[in-house]
Every structure is written in structure tokens, then in C-alpha cells.
């Protein structure tokens, strides 16, 4: 018996050895290295790395006001995506009902998500372009010249223009997730509700919303991560400009590391982002009191 259990352990050990080694090598070691570098003043080139304690974490928020501007911009992405979530759920409910050509609409809605992010950014950069740009062209044709704007260069609207692209890209994905959640709700619940005389609003509130709580939890987490890490859209469309008006925390981190040779500071920013995501996600889950069906 002893040999069997030993063999069992040996088998388990050998199966797990490589994945664990890979995990240690490519996930945990870089993470600890990132934490270590965040306490140094390393410039990315020198062999010398001096430990500076929490200096980077303090300077990050005090030396330049641009970091707050970048975080505010992340906030804009977060809020607008949050506002979109109920709307996305509503669209999913409509698509889940027996409407004509619902498959076609599902495909159309999901399409933006499978297009390459870089391609989308370029496409919209041309769409918003002041010279021969599509959006201003459409406004001109419709006789709405007064609405023509410098979509990507006016500091007051550049972030909204970018958020729109982000919503265009990710909403389809969210809707499909909701649809999957909706389809997992057993039909008998609706039938029972019908017998009890529930109307469609009650159906929505008491069956659909609790039914998709798990999906909602995932989406809220994705929203926090996505909003804090948004990178490709502003990087390609505006490079964070004009000035730092559309910069985000990730863009700012990248700039800190590679343009200004502060790898120590950039590592501190990476760690800060990790902490921010964990904290915000915790707060969000507490606020919405999220627990899936069956866990309550």
C-alpha cells in the first residue's frame, strides 16, 4: 500500500513539476523582481541599482501632476464602461428573446471584439481625422457642420472620443457573456413566474438579474482591469496627446520606463496598478454584494 501511495505522489509530483517550474520562472520570479526593482533607482541601463526605499512610490504621486491626469483618464474609461453594463444586459435580453435574425445581430455585435485592436485604433484614427475624416464628412453631408470638432485634439473631448472606441470594441463581448449567462437560466423559473402572474419587469429583476450575477461579477472585474490597463487605443490614436491630455496610467508607465529611463519608478507604477486593481475589485464586489445564484 505504501508503495502505491508513494507512486501516486511521485506521479502527481512529476506531472506538476514542470507547470510549477514554469510558473515560478515566468510569473513569480518576474513579479518578485518587479517588486525589488520598484525599490531601486535603476535607469534600465546602468549595472548599478541603488535601493531608495519607498521613494519611487512617494515621488510617483508628488513629482508630476500628470500621473493624476492619467488616472483621471482611466476613471473616464471605467465610468463609461460601467454605465454601459445595464444597457448591454438589456441588449442581451432582447437578443435572447425570439427576434427575427437574432443570430445575424449576435454576429454583428460580436464582430468588433474579434477585430485586432491596432486595426480598430487606426480605423477610428482615420474616422476622426480632421482631413478627409469620415465623421466630419458625415456631419457635413447631413448639414450639421456646427457639430464638427477636432475629435482627437480638443482636450475637452479627446477622452470621450477614445472611450467611444473602447465601448464600440468591448460591448459586443460583454453582450455575448450576458447571453451565455441568460441561456444558463432554467426555463422552468420563467414558467413558474408566468403561472404566478409576474410581469416582464419582475421577470427581469427577480430572475434575470440574479441569474447573470456570476457574469456580472466577471464583467465588473474585467472592467476594472480593462479601464486601468487601457493602452492600445490611446497609444495608437493620440500617443497620449495632445500633451498628456489622453494619457493613461499604462501609457504613463511606459513613458516613465522607456522615455525617461526610470525603470525603478515604472516598476513602482506597475505594482501600484496591481494594488489598485485588487482594491477596486474588492470594493466593487462589496458594494454590489455579488454572489452567484446558489451561493446566497
Amino acid at each position, binding site marked *: 500500500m505504501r508503495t502505491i501511495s508513494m507512486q501516486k505522489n511521485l*506521479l502527481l509530483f512529476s506531472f506538476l513539476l514542470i507547470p510549477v517550474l514554469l510558473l515560478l520562472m515566468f510569473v513569480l520570479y518576474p513579479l518578485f523582481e518587479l517588486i525589488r526593482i520598484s525599490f531601486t533607482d535603476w535607469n534600465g541601463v546602468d549595472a548599478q541599482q541603488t535601493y531608495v526605499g519607498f521613494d519611487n512610490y512617494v515621488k510617483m504621486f508628488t513629482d508630476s501632476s500628470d500621473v493624476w491626469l492619467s488616472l483621471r483618464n482611466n476613471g473616464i474609461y471605467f465610468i463609461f464602461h460601467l454605465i454601459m453594463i445595464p444597457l448591454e444586459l438589456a441588449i442581451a435580453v432582447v437578443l435572447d428573446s425570439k427576434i427575427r435574425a437574432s443570430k445575424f445581430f449576435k454576429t454583428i455585435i460580436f464582430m468588433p471584439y474579434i477585430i485586432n485592436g491596432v486595426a480598430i485604433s487606426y480605423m477610428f484614427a482615420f474616422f476622426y481625422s480632421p482631413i478627409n475624416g469620415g465623421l466630419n464628412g458625415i456631419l457635413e453631408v447631413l448639414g450639421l457642420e456646427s457639430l464638427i470638432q477636432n475629435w482627437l485634439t480638443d482636450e475637452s473631448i479627446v477622452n470621450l472620443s477614445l472611450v467611444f472606441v473602447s465601448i464600440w470594441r468591448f460591448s459586443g463581448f460583454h453582450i455575448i457573456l450576458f447571453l451565455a449567462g441568460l441561456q444558463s437560466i432554467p426555463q422552468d423559473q420563467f414558467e413558474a413566474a408566468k403561472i404566478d402572474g409576474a410581469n416582464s419587469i419582475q421577470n427581469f429583476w427577480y430572475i434575470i438579474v440574479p441569474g447573470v450575477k456570476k457574469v456580472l461579477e466577471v464583467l465588473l472585474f474585467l472592467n476594472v482591469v480593462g479601464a486601468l490597463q487601457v493602452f492600445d487605443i490611446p497609444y495608437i490614436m493620440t500617443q497620449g496627446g495632445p500633451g498628456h491630455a489622453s494619457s493613461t496610467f499604462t501609457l504613463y508607465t511606459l513613458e516613465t520606463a522607456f522615455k525617461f529611463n526610470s525603470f525603478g519608478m515604472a516598476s513602482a507604477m506597475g505594482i501600484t496598478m496591481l494594488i489598485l486593481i485588487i482594491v477596486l475589485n474588492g470594493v466593487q464586489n462589496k458594494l454590489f454584494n455579488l454572489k452567484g445564484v446558489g451561493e446566497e
Partner: protein
Amino acid sequence: MHQTRLRVTRMLCMIMITALMVPLFSGCGSKGNSDASKGQSTTDGQQQEQKAADDKEKDKKDPVTLKFPIWSTITEDLFTKLDLVNEYKKDHPNVTIELELLKDTEYENTLKIRNAANELPDIMPLKSAWLVNFKDNILPLDDLEAAKNNLFAADFKVNDQILGVPESQFNEFVWYHKSVFQEYGIEIPKTWGEFVAAAKKIKDGGKYIPIAMGGKDAWPDYPFNEFMPSLVAGDGDYWSTMATMDEPFTKGQAFYDAYVKIQELYDAKVMGPDPLGVGFDQSKLMFASKQAGMIALGQWFGSDLKSMPDVDMNDIGAFLLPVRDSVDQPFNTVSMVDTFYTIPKTSKHPEEAKEFLNWFFSDKWYSKYMTEAQLQSTIKDVKIDLGTTFNGAFDIPNLNYVLNKGGNEDYKKIESAIKFDVKKMGQDMMAGKDFNKMMQDMNKSWKNARSKLK
């Protein structure tokens, strides 16, 4: 039954463990093994043969590959056209030059990442401002023949050592369409005021955009936002000078005064309806297709222009950007020295790399290459024929060349601490950000960063 199962499990176990362990250990051990097998294969008889072969080989040199990255497609085109690799092979049959084009905006980052992995190339061109960043990683070249003959190498010493040999020297120009200037009766401007007035005159005509500006990419505003402070100060190392001041963004200081002028130009709206919405590629096409009358760019733009179809080079002229207030003052103009050839300490073939640099800057290659590139020489006694485009551009009394430098270590520290980016400031100015507040904020953070200098 039970025993058979046990045996099967044991066998499976052994197979699994072997399968998992083999790649792991073979990966670790491969180098040692191959070395060992090499050692075994050299028996006594073979050793003698080897010795004889070595003697023969002494005449022939071992094949060497020199890795040589570049950042510009223009350079790549020129090297291909003039066949750099084979030209060098003619003189040095054992040396192969391996060119690699890196994306210009990612060039420095790529080198930093390679440096972290100890994989820097053998020949490494750098911009002057990067010499300080890589100072610990590159070889001093004070004894190199090419460095001794260079007019500017000594001006860019770091810690009293020549670290790079600059390839070319060029000036910054305002390129213009002669026909547009004729149409509006505009003379070549000699002062900043005349320059702004000329742009306004073209704007009032309503036919052309006066100055093409690719503000979306930020960097194309460099002739104004990067160079004008040193031109107003008449000090090519103005960044280092700024690093000695607490509040360089104050009225009366060169930086502030230059930026007031630049703001005046941006406020005149002479760069089209939305300069920040236009990238560099679009802006250069706007100029080439005569939608715009002028564009401010370096001498390097000449070969770019020539390669574009449908550009009438006879209609293109160039003048030096005037920043002075009156004709009585000296006419300061930027002199850029660019593309510093360096040799990393990690190069496996430093001697061959040095030999290559000496060849590169010799008669066999250098003049031919510079003439094709339409840039001025950095080597003593080598004159390059620049054609007719720049005729008259330098015929200015009181002309004073200001040799642009990238700033010292103190400046770099401040720049990095406050993320000082003049090109982004240029974008902010075009976007109409509050100028005085911007200067006040800069003063505050500059002073703060300076106080923390060690």
C-alpha cells in the same frame, strides 16, 4: 489482477517521469555534452593535422559578422543603393556586415532591452543625447583614427572620453515653395517677426496652409520647441545651463522668451485648421503636394523630398529659421551633429568594429555616402557638394552656428524626474493650454527636482 495493475501503474509512472525529465536535463546538459564530445574527438593524430591547418589559417582570418543596427529607412536605402555590405567585403573578405533596421521610435528602447540581455550589437549608432545613457556600456574611442580626424567628436566627450564618432552635420531649415513666396511677394524672412508675418500673409491669401505641421506625432515641433531656447540663448548646451538654474521658465530667461515667440506663432493659427490632428507623414505630403507653403525640418528632409513622386525640386527652396528680433543681432542657427558610431563593450569583435569605423570614415566610402545623403561632412578636409537647393541659405551676415548638445547628467536627472518633454509642451501650446500657468508649474517642478539632485 491486482499485481498486473500495479505493474502497469509502475511502468506508466516510469515512462511519465522519464518523458518529463529527459527534456529538462537534456536542456541543461547539452552544452557540456557537446564540449565533451568535441574534446574526445581531438585525438593525437588529429591534433597534428589541426596544427598544420592552423598555420595555414593564420594567413586567412576567421569569418566575422558585425551586427550593425540602424534607425532610418533613408539610411537603409542609401546603404542598399551604395551596397555597403559588399563594398566592405571587397577590402575585408572575412567580415560580413549584418544590417538591421529597427523602428526609429523604438530604437533606443530596443537597445536598452538588448543591453539588459548583454546582446548589444558590434557597431551601435546613437543620437548625441543617448551617449550619456550608454556611457558605461561603450568603449572609449579616443585612439581611433576616425575619431581623431573628426571635427566634432571631441565636443561631445562624456567624462572626458570620446565615446562616439559622429557621422554627419546638418542644419535646420524652413523648406518653402518658391512659387508660393512669389505669388504673395514674400522675401526670405530675416527676423522672427518677418517669419511670422510671412506665414500670416500666406494664411490671409486663403489658398495654402502656411506651415505644414505634423503635431499629432509631437516630434515634428522640434525645430521650434526643442531648438529655439538654445538659439535665443546662443548656447548649444542650453539644457545643461538650465540644469544650473532654479527657475528657467521665468520671463527674461531664454527658455521663456523663446516659448513666448513660439506661442505667438501657434496662436496665429498658421498651421492649418488642426495641426494636432495631422501626423508627420500627412504633413510632409501636404508640403510636397503644395497644399502647404512651408515646413520646418532638418537638412535630412532633402533626400526624403527627392524620393517623393511629383515634387518639383526646382520650386523648393530652403532658408534658415530666423529667431532674432532685429537684423542687427547675430543670426543664430542650429548645427546638428548626428549618428554617433559607438562600439559596445560587449562586442565580441571590437578590433574588427574599429577597423570598420576607420574604413567607414575613409575616402573609400565616406564622401560618396555623404554626397548621396546630402549632409555635411564631420571629417577634416572633406567637403560635400550639396547641390543648388541650399543656394544662398548661408549667405547671411552675422551668421553664428550653435552646436546642439543633448544636456549633461544633471539635466538628464531633472528631465527624468519631472518628465520634461518639450515636444509634448509644444502640443499643449498648440492645443491652447494656459501658457503662464504652464510656465509657473514647470518652474515649481523644476526647482523641486533640482533640490533633490545629489
